Structure formats: structure tokens, C-alpha cells
């Protein structure tokens, strides 16, 4: 793993380019400018070999220093309904009836690390959300103001609000580990090898290879989930039935919500230009027509 440094690609609520302007540090301390030496990282989750053991959940809370949450029973293998601010990684368990019978679908649910992150686009706080050139989208709670705009921007329903700290949390793809050249904690814990970590290119290759295998074994609908609506994700799945991602509680075509784009796009620019034009307009009016000097005018008439 040579991601020995994390070069920033995008910053939330930030004017202008990222600090450093394309220069970044190399491990020997020298600086380099030009094309990034970082490569896109990617987590590959092969749902067809997941046994739902939840080792990844334990590894996640352990590495990030949180306590395991209390589980609930709902007559299935689902241990708790959804991820939480201090529980970023949860095996989603689904029972799906098909023509052939009943399917037990298990999917590791966590942040998808979108190439086009709706959370970052929606975030107003400078530096609260950062996207690194390797694709990791990271929350920086020190800069988070708790507005939860990120929640409105996320098509995967991932950011979780902590009512005590008034900050939002989510999976970091272990940016602290990856930055130090290690693989994420969940990857290390998986006993079946359904979790893989590497460059996006390699993981896509591995995923396609597995899909070929599944096709050969009669799973004709098997495929890779790497949604193009958010320009691809840095967490990809191999699904047994890629035609119905909803079966796994995955959106079929996730995109940054239209109103987030309108609000952070045209509205922001029209609003800004409008306000400047308004102030300029009234100033021009003043120097053209001036005030209504009523008292003087009345005196003249009298």
C-alpha cells in the first residue's frame, strides 16, 4: 500500500482550490508537483461469499474506539435496524422470495465513498468534509457544525448525527490506516475473504472475475454494483442479482439529489450575482435620482 500520504482533492464549503495547489509531500519529505502519485483505493464486497459473521462490525468499532451497541431482535438475523453515529458498519440481512425459493441476502452496509459525494457538495462548513485524491471521503468533526446538510445530500442514507456532540459521523474507510499504508480494519477481519481492498482498477478486475465465475455457476443476474449516477463509488459490491439492488436495500440509481445540485449550483450563483446587482443598482439609482427632498420642495411651493 503506497498511499503513504493523503492528498486532498475536494473540501466542503471551501473557496478556491485545495491548499497546496497540486504540490504534495512524498514520503522522503521532498515535494512533487504535477500528476498525483496516489491511486484510487477501493473496497470490494463480494456479497455472495459473506456469511454474516459480523467480524467486520467488531473490527470497525474496535479500531475506531467505540463500544459495541446493544442488539435488538426482530425475528431475523438483523442485529440492529441501522448504522449509528458510533457504529459505521452493519451487516444488512434481507429475506427475499424468488421463483426458486427463499434467499438470505447479507450485505455489509457502510459509506460508499462516492466519486461525486453529495454530502461534500451539500456541506456548508469549510473543511468539515474532505475528499482525498485516493477517493476516500472523510468527515472532520472539528469543523462540523451539525447542520446535517450532508444528510440531505447523501443518496445512501449514511451520515449519522450525534445529538450529544451535535456532529455527524460515518465510515472513514479507515483513512487513518490507509494513510499509514494499512488496509481498513474490516478487511483484516473478514474470515471468508469476501472483503478485498486495493486500487479501484484491481478491485474492478477482481469483481468482474468473480462475476464470470458466478455466471458460469448459473447465477445469470450476478453483477458489479458501482453506480455511475455518483460517478462510481470507492466501495463496490458483487451482487448475486445486480438487476435488483433494492433487494439488498441499495438504491437502483443513486444520484446527488436534484435540489442539492440546484441549490449549490444555479441558486448560489444567481443569488450572489443578484445581491451584488441589487446593491449596485440602488447605488446607481441614488447617484442618478438622489433623495426625495420633501421639505425643500414644499418650501419652494409655498
Amino acid at each position, binding site marked *: 500500500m503506497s498511499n503513504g500520504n493523503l492528498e486532498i482533492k475536494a473540501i466542503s464549503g471551501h473557496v478556491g482550490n485545495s491548499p497546496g495547489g497540486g504540490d504534495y509531500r512524498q514520503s522522503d519529505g521532498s515535494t512533487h508537483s504535477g500528476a498525483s502519485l496516489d491511486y484510487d483505493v477501493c473496497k470490494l464486497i463480494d456479497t455472495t461469499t459473506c456469511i454474516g459473521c459480523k467480524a467486520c462490525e467488531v473490527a470497525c468499532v474496535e479500531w475506531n474506539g467505540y463500544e459495541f451497541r446493544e442488539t435488538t431482535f426482530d425475528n431475523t438475523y438483523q442485529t440492529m435496524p441501522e448504522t449509528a453515529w458510533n457504529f459505521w458498519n452493519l451487516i444488512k440481512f434481507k429475506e427475499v422470495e424468488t421463483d426458486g425459493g427463499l434467499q438470505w441476502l447479507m450485505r455489509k452496509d457502510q459509506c460508499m465513498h462516492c466519486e461525486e459525494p453529495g454530502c461534500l457538495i451539500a456541506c456548508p*462548513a469549510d473543511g468539515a468534509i474532505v475528499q482525498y485524491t485516493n477517493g476516500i471521503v472523510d468527515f472532520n468533526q472539528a469543523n462540523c457544525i451539525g447542520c446535517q446538510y450532508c444528510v440531505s445530500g447523501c443518496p445512501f442514507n449514511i451520515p449519522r448525527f450525534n445529538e450529544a456532540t451535535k456532529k455527524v459521523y460515518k465510515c472513514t474507510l479507515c483513512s487513518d490506516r490507509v494513510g499509514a499504508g494499512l488496509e481498513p480494519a474490516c478487511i483484516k477481519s473478514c474470515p471468508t475473504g469476501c472483503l478485498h481492498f486495493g486500487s479501484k482498477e484491481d478491485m474492478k478486475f477482481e469483481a468482474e472475475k468473480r462475476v464470470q465465475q458466478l455466471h458460469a455457476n448459473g447465477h445469470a443476474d450476478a453483477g458489479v454494483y458501482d453506480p455511475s449516477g455518483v460517478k462510481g463509488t470507492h466501495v463496490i459490491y458483487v451482487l448475486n442479482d445486480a438487476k435488483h439492488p433494492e433487494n439488498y436495500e441499495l438504491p437502483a440509481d443513486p444520484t446527488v439529489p436534484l435540489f442539492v445540485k440546484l*441549490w449549490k449550483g444555479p*441558486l448560489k450563483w444567481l443569488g450572489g450575482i443578484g445581491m451584488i446587482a441589487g446593491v449596485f443598482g440602488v447605488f446607481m439609482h441614488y447617484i442618478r435620482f438622489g433623495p426625495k427632498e420633501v421639505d425643500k420642495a414644499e418650501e419652494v411651493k409655498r
Partner: protein
Amino acid sequence: MSGGIVARPATAIPEDQVQRYNFAERAYHWINSFAYTYLMLTGLALFTPLAYWLAYVLGGPATIRYWHPWIGLVYFATIFWMHRLWKRDMQKIPQDEQWSKNIRAYAENRDEAMPPQGRFNAGQKQFWWVMFYCTFILLITGIVMWIPEKMPRELHWVLPIIIFIHSATALITIAAFIIHVYMSVWVTPGSVKAMVEGHVSTTWARTHHRLWYEKITGRRN
């Protein structure tokens, strides 16, 4: 304005002056305007990165996110009270149509073309009703944005629409606000004094609000 406050000698209205706003009206207006200014500046800080520096000037980003909704309630409360005081004066009168039609003459200071106006002219009424209705939209959308964590997850898809409406409505009020401040501070000298000290000259009243002047003084010029 006749009636209401009994003026003690020290606060007597000077000669050739008439009372325009009583103390309650002035108090509500200024609480409202300070609240609005805070809301506008903090709202802009969260609207565009270009204005995020305002967040630091006004106490820090997390602090303004905490206070913006509370100050919003103050703003709403004072709008509500101003509405109680002014709703009758803000009703349309027959002359308003002519005024709106001649608005260009008004903007070009050819006031002789304007019909006589009541306590508020047609433009002030339009400003008031824009702010009044926008306030309700801002209140409803603002409450949702205040506590989205209380919202069921299935309804999260409305959040971007709510935030968009809140921002767009706020921009409409800012347009109205720019015109309001410009008109009162620069175009009609005497307006700020009216809202601070409460009274205007009889000439000012007769020129800008002739119907109101005739009503309160019983005089015809």
C-alpha cells in the same frame, strides 16, 4: 398616529411634527430588524463559501448554527406582532392601483404624478406582504432544517427541497430588504428619524402620506 401613548412634557412631540410610530411599533421594528440582519448574515454564511467568513465574525460556525433558529423565532414573533399592529394600515386602498401603475415616476422622483397615499404607500405594503408571507415559508422550512434528526428516514428525500425553498425564499427577502433599507435611509430623509424617535415633520407627512396626514390632523392641507 392619534391616541395610544400620552406624551409627558419631556417627550412631547415638537412643533410642526406629528407622531408616526408609537413606542411599541418602534420596538417591534428594531428587534425585528436586528434579528433579520443576524439571520441574513448567518444564513449567507451557510449559503455560500464566499460568505463563510461571516460565521467567524459572528461567533463561530457551530455557534451561528445554534443561534440562527432561535433568533429566527424572535424574528417570527416580532413579524407576528407587527402584523397585529399594522394589518389594517396594510390593506389595499383604491389609490394603490394608480400608485403601482406610476411606480416608474415614483422611482424617478416625479412625485407629483403619484396619487395621495395612506399611512403606508403601495410599495411599503408590497414590501410588508412579501416579508410577511416569506416569513411563514422560512418558519416552516426552518423548523424542519432545525431538527432533521427528528424526521423519519423515509422522509429524508424532502430535505433538499426544503433547504432549497428556505434559501430561495431568503434571497427574495434579501432583495426586498435591500430596497427597504435603501428607500428609508437614503431616498426619503426623515424615515429613520420617524422609526427611531417616532415623529416626522408635517411637511413630510403631507408629502409622502397625504391621506394619513389628513386623517390624523383633520386638516385638508
